Structure formats: structure tokens, C-alpha cells
């Protein structure tokens, strides 16, 4: 069954349609939310709410359009909101250990882990909205125009947010490297 059929099923009130959508998109959605909220548990809550919203609002969805961008837009929105509301901090301590357990060479692992730590730390210093544009641009691979539509802000604002986030990230990463 394809996505369109799943949506049609859901529109008819068949919850099986939602289950298919959940299985297709949950991982990408939770990862997206996690990069913005920096909290895995909160990210799961955000995505769960987003799916519930889909369940309730599927009748407003134009089935001829792709579901993924529509859905991820609501995830990004909700994640930004959740991140703005919460001051929860999370630890990335275990990440290095997990990296070391992978198949990469020790040098590559250390380099990758170190760079990821730098990115993660740098991301933490960005505002939720700046994190959202970075995640949309680099994790979801969206164009600036798409981001403009999804964030409901003018293209110029997206460009500004992205540039400021990039500049800040670069500065932070450079600082990390120098240190």
C-alpha cells in the first residue's frame, strides 16, 4: 500500500492508514525533532502529538500533495515551540562511547565523534528557530524557498536566519578547533 492509499484510508476513518504513515515517517520525524529540541523524549512527544494532529486534521489535507513535507513542517513547528518552552538540557556523554563501538577506524571514529560533538555543542548555542533552519537545510535537505513556505516566514528572513546560524556555527566550530 502506498502513501496515498494510506491517506485515503485515514480520511475514511481507518486507523490502519495512520499506522502505515507512522511506520514510514516516525524515525525521520523524531530525528528532526530531536535535533531541534535536543531531547529524545521530548522529540518523541512532539512527533506523537504531530501524528495525533494528522489523525484529527487529515480531512484538511489535500491527498494529491506529498504528505512528508506537510507532516515534517508541523513537526518542525512543534519542535521549535517545545524547545522554546523547555530549558531541558541533555547529555551527549554516551555518544562517544557508541561511536567507539562502531566499525570505523579508531582515528576516523575519533575525528567523526569530535566533529559531531563540536556541531552538537554549536547547535546548542543557537536559538530554536535558528536550529530549525539548520535542521531543515542540512538534515532535511530543503531549499531556502521550501523553508520559507514551511516556516511561514519571508524568504529574506529564512536567508537571514540561515546565514546567521551558519556564521555562528562556523565561528563556534572554528573556536572549538582553535581551542
Amino acid at each position, binding site marked *: *500500500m502506498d502513501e496515498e492509499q494510506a491517506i485515503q484510508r485515514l480520511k*475514511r*476513518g*481507518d*486507523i*490502519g492508514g*495512520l*499506522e*502505515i504513515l*507512522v*511506520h514510514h515517517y*516516525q*524515525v525521520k520525524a*523524531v*530525528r*528532526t525533532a*530531536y*535535533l531541534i529540541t535536543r531531547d*529524545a523524549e521530548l522529540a*518523541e512527544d512532539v512527533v*506523537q502529538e504531530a*501524528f*495525533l494532529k494528522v*489523525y*484529527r*486534521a*487529515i*480531512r*484538511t489535507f*489535500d491527498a494529491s*500533495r*506529498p504528505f512528508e*513535507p*506537510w507532516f515534517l*513542517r508541523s513537526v518542525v513547528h512543534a519542535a521549535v515551540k517545545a524547545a522554546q518552552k523547555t530549558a531541558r538540557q541533555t547529555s*551527549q556523554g554516551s*555518544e562517544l562511547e*557508541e*561511536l567507539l563501538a562502531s566499525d570505523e577506524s579508531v582515528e576516523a571514529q575519533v575525528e*567523526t565523534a569530535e*566533529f*559531531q560533538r*563540536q*556541531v*552538537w555543542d554549536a547547535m546548542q548555542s543557537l536559538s530554536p528557530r535558528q536550529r530549525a533552519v*539548520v*535542521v531543515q537545510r*542540512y*538534515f532535511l*535537505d*530543503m531549499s531556502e*524557498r*521550501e523553508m520559507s*513556505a*514551511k516556516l*511561514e*516566514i*519571508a524568504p529574506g528572513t529564512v536567508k537571514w536566519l540561515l546565514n546567521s546560524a551558519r556564521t555562528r*556555527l*562556523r565561528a563556534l566550530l572554528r573556536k572549538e578547533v582553535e581551542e
Partner: protein
Amino acid sequence: MTREERLQQALEGIAARQIPETTNLWPRLAARIEERKSLMQNLRARPALALFILLLALALLTGAAYAVGKSLGYLPGVGIIDQSAPIRVLAEPVSMTREGITVTVKQAALTADQTVVVYTVENVPWEARPHTENVHGCFATPFLRLPDGSELELIEGGGEMGGARFVYPAIPPQVNEATFFLPCIEETLPGKSPVNWQLPLHFVPAPPDLTVVPVIEIQPTATAETDQPMVVTETPTIGATSPITLTHAMQIGDQYVLLGSLTQPSSDGWIQLTAANQITDASGKEIFASSPTLAGLPSYDWGFQFNAAGVTFPITLTFTGEEVSTDLSLAGPPQTWTLQWSPQNPPEAAALYGISLHLDRFIPVEDGYYLIGHTDWTDERIAGVTEYGTMQAFDANGNEVPVEKAKFAEAVTLVENLEANQWVYHLRSKTFSRPLTLRLSLFNVEFKQPVRFSLDLRSYGFTFAEEQVGMAWKTGLIPLEVPGLGATLFRVTYVREEEKHGFEFTLEADPRLQSLALDFEDGVTGETGPRVGTSHHDLQSGLLLVTVLTDGQLSMPLSIVAYGADVTGQWETQWAPPSP
């Protein structure tokens, strides 16, 4: 590798390590969705609890009112409402136009337990909409603000881009004012349409002549597990392992609505209904049923709506499905489940438009009888009723007796000044078990007030250009005032056939509306040949498709009109002729 690619890779790595591929939200999500159902099941398991509690819970959870002693009604356009307490409605529709876009709150119904608001959005310019794949516009739900500043958040609802129906919590009886807040026009690009719309609403007691169709809840709860129906005695027959449960059965006017749930197995995976579900009545006749189209129904996993006329109970619902595992592969062979249901007292469905058959006289001939009769109707919205020659005759044992419409030349020799509502049939037998049942199933009706609507696609960039042939345009929901039958236009497609061009109109319509003779009333010039049109109810999709074509020039806005329609049903009269 560029720095940006490294950044991308790093983000993917961070996310992948913290959120594994095995992440599974479904169990928790399903549990939350099931909360409504489990609440109902708990109540079923404890019949000592007052039914009131069950029904109150339903009303709270679904936005629909279900309670003993409550008088339920279906308010067209609004949905199921509780009439046991005074209802308030919108004093008058409220419109606001900004930058050419018009938002109208068309209807509102305030009951003791909910507030329903129906609004439309018109004239959104083409350039305000996203037209690129993956680009979407604004999405924000409207809310109600009361005079004390409190805000009512949406409980449920939705619609198309052209408008929607939303349900909010109840507004206190002493409050007769509210502001409808629409943060933005849905699916418009940022900066392309005005935002923060505020429409002041004023509510007044419902007028005594408010059209509300009575709703009779026949069976609010009944499942195979409980066998303890709470309100009435009918219980569905169901296989022990069937995942199919009937949860609601309602009679709304002459329509039945059946709603049910689909119980998922406890193992990994889920049941997926695959084949088209089928309903047959006790005589083996397949019943045409559509998905429920009435607003404000309780939530359901599966649902049907069908016309009660001519249905012999019990009916059998057949479902086909397969178990699908979490990796989306099929886990088992296709299975079929059936469910039988009958209302305790199948009510006599009111005949559409009050149409009735009358046999006026008969003429014995060598091989049978000429039957001469007429059709009557009581609905004052109807100017004329003509039958289509579909008469069937059945003897007392249910055996069909051959009958055919008399040729016109034959009929005029039998009836002087043959009127449009008169008919003459030739029954080709004299030996049958009395009484005889004469049945007609298709009529053409003429409306006293033609059905009219206006079509204007200019704001969507429509120009009658050749490259737009075959393109479908979502119109938003445009309800057509077809007397007694629901019909909502939601899509038009620009079509061309040889030298003629025009539109195919797609409507969600009452299954009894077999065809609707739409025609251009205005907006056509330079026509040299006749217009052509087709109309039929597509049995597979349940949609009514109407096409109108002309060889003239068309211009927007187009005025569309229908003077009549074909309606299906079963109209019968009995006749006991003297024995030969």
C-alpha cells in the same frame, strides 16, 4: 568533502545515534487513540453505570451528543446536535473582505455541549497559493474568543481549502457574542494574503422553523464481546475472532449510518481491510452504501451510510482484510469477516418527495392486463414527476411477473390526454399469486426552484487555455440546494471533446441522486450547435459526475443551473386483480 557536507553528515550521525531506526511510536500512539474506545468498553463492562455517563462521555469525546432523553437532530451543514436544550444559531452570516479575499462564517450552532462553526473562504488569488511541489502555505486553526477574553480551542473539525466546519467547547448560555479568529488563510504563502482575521459573531435563539432532521440512535453500543446492548435489543452477529465491531447505528431521516471499530491484533502488525466491503440485504440484493457524509459523527474505523428504502433486514456486511506485519509485508492469507445487523423495528422510510404510485384502472386483454395509473407527490418543492419505464411486478411469492411499458401510440389509445405523471404498462400474464406488487425505481423530478450556483476559477489562474484541458480544480465545498437530497460540489475539471468544451463537475451526493441535469445558464456566447451533457452516479466511487459541453465561448463567472434530476428508490403499490 565540503564543510556543509560534513555538517550534514554530523547532524545525521547525531540524530541516528540518539534516535535509533527501531524507534516505534505506534504502540503509545495507538493507545492514546484507543483511549476513546477503551473508555466506552469500560462502560460497557459495567452496565450498572448509568447510560447517561456513557453517552455524556461520547458527547464530550466526539463532539456529538448522545444521551437518553436527548432529542438529537441533524442540522444540514452543521451536523448532529442535541435539541433537548435550547439551541442558538448565528443571527446572520458574517462576512469580511480584505484584499479581495472574503471570509464568511456561514453557520453556527450552539448547544449545551458544543459550538459548531462553519466558514468559507473565497476569491483567494492564484499567486497566493503555493504551486510548487513540496511548497505548502500557512496552516493554522481558527479559534473563538469570548467577550471576557477567554479562548475556545478547537476540539475537532476540518474541511477543504475553501472552508471548513469546526467544533469548539460550549459557549455559556448568557454569552451571545464571540469573535472568530482566523490566524491566516489556509494554504496561502507568507505575505500573500491578510492574516489575523477577526469576525464578530452574534448568536440568537434558533428560529422555530429551523430545519432539523430527526436522528434516532438505534443502537449506541453493541459488540460481540458484551452481548448487553444498553438501549435496544438488537445485537450484531459476529464471528468469535472477528476484529470487526459495530459501535453505532443511527437512523437520520431515511438514511441509516453504521459505524464500527477494527480491533487490531496484539501481535506485531495490523489488520488491513483490503477488498471493497459489501453489504447485502436479506433478499440477497446488494445495497449501495457510501462512506458517511454527515458531519459531526462519532469517530470510527469503518462506516457506511445507506438509504433505508427497499432494504430487507437483516443486512450482511462483508469485510475482507489481511494481516500486515510491521515491515509492511503480508503476514497471513486474506480473511473474510461478516457481520449481520437488523434494527429492532425497521421504520418505514419516508418516500422521497412523498412520491406514491396509484393504479387507476386495468383492462384485461388476452395475454394479461393493461395497467393504467399515475404518480403523485406531496413535496411542494417539486413541480413534476415522470417515471422512466422501470416498472417491475412481483407476485405474492416474490416471483417476477413480466411487465413492459406500453408504447406511446398504444397508450394514447387507452388514455385520453395522457399527462406526464400518468403511465400505462402491459402486464403479460394472468396467472400469478395475488396480490401483485408493482414497483418503480427511477423517476425524473422537476424542481420548482432551479438549483443554481456560480463558478469562477479566475482567481486560480484559469483562462480556458488548451493546456488546462484535463486539469481538475478544487472548488472548496459548494453545497447545492437540491430539494431533499444532499449534493456538494467539490471539484471541476475542464474538458474538451472535439469542437465542444466545458466542465465535468464532481459531487459528493446522496446515493439516491442518480443524475443532476446541470447546464450553463449564463456565460456562454457564440453557440452554434446543441449543448451536450452526461450525468451519472459512479457506483465504485459513490460520486456524482456531471458533464456539460458547448461549442460556444465560455467566460467566468459561469452561472450553472439544474432544473431537475433523476432519483432512484423503490416506490410500490399493490394490486389484487380478480381471478381469471
